[in-house]
């Protein structure tokens, strides 16, 4: 692939870039006024193209199916919402969240890992929460990296939690940490920090700040020299589009 990100514009527009170049292009976009202008122009020039399609009759039951599926997830999340609020602040949602995540067939070991950290299990058993899986993506490893992981967004009432799990992680040295980032058009935001256990398993949960409107497009994990990095210094170890 050509090294000049300006040449990637069409592939970016068509969603043809893999995670790493995509992120690189988005970074580039914030610096390159020409590319931004070209992208806007492309959007403008193609704006009416959908209207050129020949009308096709949707299947007769499609509306029922689609809206059924759309609302179904909501139904599951709608039930008891009260009494949960206070406890949630104390991070006690980890276990039920993990259950939801594991249900989606994830890394079993991380469950054990986190359960061990919890002392007050009995109380949690009683608490019911109805969480809704918003999205769950497999994290793709960077080049030559044997690790894998998963990022899961779970909606809890009106808030969103992100759970990251990863395995086969290299042990950290000194003050090193694994840092999770959420990216919005190439701009990284810190989204949780963790260190792996001796089995190379790591997990972290993070409550997304919903006071600001964000359109997260990418989640990525880097290995950082310290827990204080304001922007990624290390290479991307795992990442995925959201």
């Amino acid at each position, binding site marked *: 692939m050509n090294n000049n990100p300006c040449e990637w514009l*069409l592939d970016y527009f068509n*969603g043809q870039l893999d995670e790493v170049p995509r992120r690189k292009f988005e970074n580039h976009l914030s610096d390159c006024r020409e590319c931004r202008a070209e992208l806007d122009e492309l959007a403008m020039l193609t704006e*009416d193209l959908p209207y*050129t399609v*020949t*009308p*096709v009759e949707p299947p007769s039951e499609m509306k029922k199916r*689609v809206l059924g599926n759309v609302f179904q997830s909501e139904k599951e999340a709608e039930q008891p919402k009260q009494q949960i609020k206070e406890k949630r602040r104390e991070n006690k949602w980890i276990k039920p969240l993990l259950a939801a995540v594991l249900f989606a067939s994830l890394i079993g070991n991380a469950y054990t890992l986190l359960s061990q950290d919890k002392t007050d299990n009995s109380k949690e058993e009683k608490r019911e929460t109805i969480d809704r899986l918003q999205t769950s993506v497999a994290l793709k490893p960077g080049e030559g990296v044997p690790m894998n992981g998963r990022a899961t967004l779970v909606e809890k009432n009106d808030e969103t939690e992100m759970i990251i799990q990863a395995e086969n992680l290299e042990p950290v040295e000194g003050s090193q940490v694994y840092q999770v980032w959420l990216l919005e058009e190439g701009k990284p935001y810190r989204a949780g920090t963790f260190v792996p256990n001796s089995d190379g398993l790591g997990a972290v949960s993070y409550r997304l700040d919903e006071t600001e409107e964000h359109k997260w497009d990418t989640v990525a994990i880097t290995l950082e020299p310290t827990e204080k990095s304001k922007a990624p210094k290390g290479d991307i170890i795992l990442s995925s589009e959201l």
Partner: protein
Amino acid sequence: MNDIDVELYEKVHLGDKQALEKIYDRYEKLLYSLSYKITGQKELAEEAVQEVFIKIWTKKGTYDSSKGKFSSWIMTMTRNASIDQLRKRRDIPSDFEYEQIPSESPSVENLIEWKEEGTMLRQAVSELSEEQQKMIHLFYFKGLSQQSIASEFEIPLGTVKGRVRLALKHLRKIIPQKLRKGGESDE
């Protein structure tokens, strides 16, 4: 027209199911037709449309009226979701032709823009050279990579962007001025 969408969208944001249903009714056929044109398969088209509405309902996709028309936003989401469906199933032979199922009811009563502009736009596209029509089809509706377009047309990679823009701009020129006025974004 856009006002209705914005109004409905705001209601959806407050959890109004009926508002979502209304948006669905307004856009079902257009989005399905668009997605069908891209994916060439009924199942994939339906899945893409469903993905779009789940994103709207779960507020994962957020519409910002300062950035343009609601219709453009929802159509772009549908295009992206459809290309994504296509990409996920690369094993399916990427046939550039597709089977068009004729619509049983040619009237597109729910979306006045489509009704008014559709015929004129299709007319405009047909006035392009065959090569430019193909260029737009492969670039916009098939979401091909720059490399694939270069191979398909047997042209140097570096010229693809220019050719795509030329075709799009040419189309833009053909589209009558009066249509442009109605179709301009709100910015």
